[in-house]
């Protein structure tokens, strides 16, 4: 994986140019190329497939309207992911009370922690537990871990998507992973027990 963000290639630039002229078919092609990453990030942030679908759709609509602001010398995927993250955060702010209620309920009734036994530690179970652990972190920590590890963006792409300097990615990741490790040790002791210090 390259550590340098790749600008939109010639074909993409042509599609972007057409979409800027209002060509919805060109935009549909571009959406098709990036919808998986956008939907997955929205799902990780929201935890609900229907909400993630709505958020992803709205993110692409917003991106279409803001397409004239997009710098075609930059990669498109981090730009779309940044729009998605901002959209989700704005929605959360707009319904702060609603989400606060959800968070309160989640904290009051934490998901049962199923320590995977050696014979039951399937990758998807580990992944689901890891996600639960990540969701205990603050939004900034969640974002950096989702971008870097779940969506497997390079450091440079992560920096673009999170709108921070590449050097900051490393320090933020370091702090986020430190906190994740504490959460796992405290609330998910069955997950990677042998690796917890």
């Amino acid at each position: 994986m390259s550590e340098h963000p790749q600008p939109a290639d010639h074909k993409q630039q042509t599609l972007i140019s057409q979409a800027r002229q209002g060509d919805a078919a060109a935009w549909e092609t571009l959406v098709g190329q990036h919808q998986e990453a956008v939907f997955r990030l929205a799902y990780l942030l929201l935890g609900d497939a229907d909400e993630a679908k709505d958020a992803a759709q709205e993110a692409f609509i917003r991106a279409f309207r803001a397409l004239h602001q997009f710098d075609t010398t930059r990669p498109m995927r981090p730009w779309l992911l940044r729009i998605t993250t901002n959209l989700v955060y704005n929605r959360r702010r707009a319904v702060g009370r609603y989400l606060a209620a959800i968070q309160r309920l989640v904290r009051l009734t934490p998901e049962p922690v199923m320590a995977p036994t050696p014979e039951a530690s399937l990758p998807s179970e580990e992944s689901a537990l890891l996600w639960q652990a990540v969701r205990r972190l603050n939004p900034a920590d969640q974002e950096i871990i989702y971008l870097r590890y779940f969506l497997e963006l390079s450091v440079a792409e992560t920096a673009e998507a999170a709108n921070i300097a590449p050097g900051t990615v490393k320090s933020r990741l370091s702090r986020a992973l430190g906190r994740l490790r504490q959460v796992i040790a405290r609330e998910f002791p069955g997950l990677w027990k042998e690796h917890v210090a």
Partner: protein
Amino acid sequence: MSERFFGRTGGNHNEAWEARLRDAARAFPYPPTPDIASVVRAQLAEEAGRKAGLPVSRRLVWAALIVLLLLGGLLAVPQVRAALVEYLQIGAIRIFLVEPTPTSTPLPSTATAQPTPTPIASLLDLAGETTLAEASQQVDFPIRLPTYPADLGQPDAVFAQELGGPVVVLVWLDEADPSRVRLSLHQLGPGTFGDKGDPGRVEETVVNGRRAIWAEGPYVLQFRRGNQVDYDLRRLVEGRVLIWTEGEITYRLETDLSLAEAVRVAESLR
């Protein structure tokens, strides 16, 4: 990537931990990615069409007028009136029907009938979010709360809307699944209009000794679209709607409870 994340432990140990994290994250079982591209294209096309025409709220008014004119014309012919179309009026809400007026005897099949699928609104999109205290200041009628079920408590979300008059929407979330609405109670003040189409199965019932309607299907609410507020036909609960009046206020209780339970909730308002 070979960053050292934890200075207090060894580098190999940290790298192994990070490798485990990377593997688990990579194996995460995402739901299948839906076809967003074609939906986005359809939405853009719809918006383009909307720009070419009247704003949605204006179009809604015109559509309602056309419906009323059509109904007016049809209702002028007695045979047509009897055979084709009727409507029920209860408080501020007018329910257009394509079947004869329902009898006061509920049909046996309605007890287990499933509501017809209609779009269920996301709370995230509802306009006018406020607090109970603020909503009480905004409307000139007392906002009443159900005292049954006993565990219901205060609403989890409150919205103040404007549909020709003030409307307060109270929402209770499902404790087991807070993304799901357990119950919504709409209180429509004087001057409100509420046309309801596609009511599905309709029954007449009684709340506090007065006529009430037990129906299903969507109704008009205000939604946020970007920075604008617009109207749409939606519902909040996958269930049915009990509509009744008290004084100048029309109440609409949306729930997946049975009719008997819904009436009990309605009669518990204090």
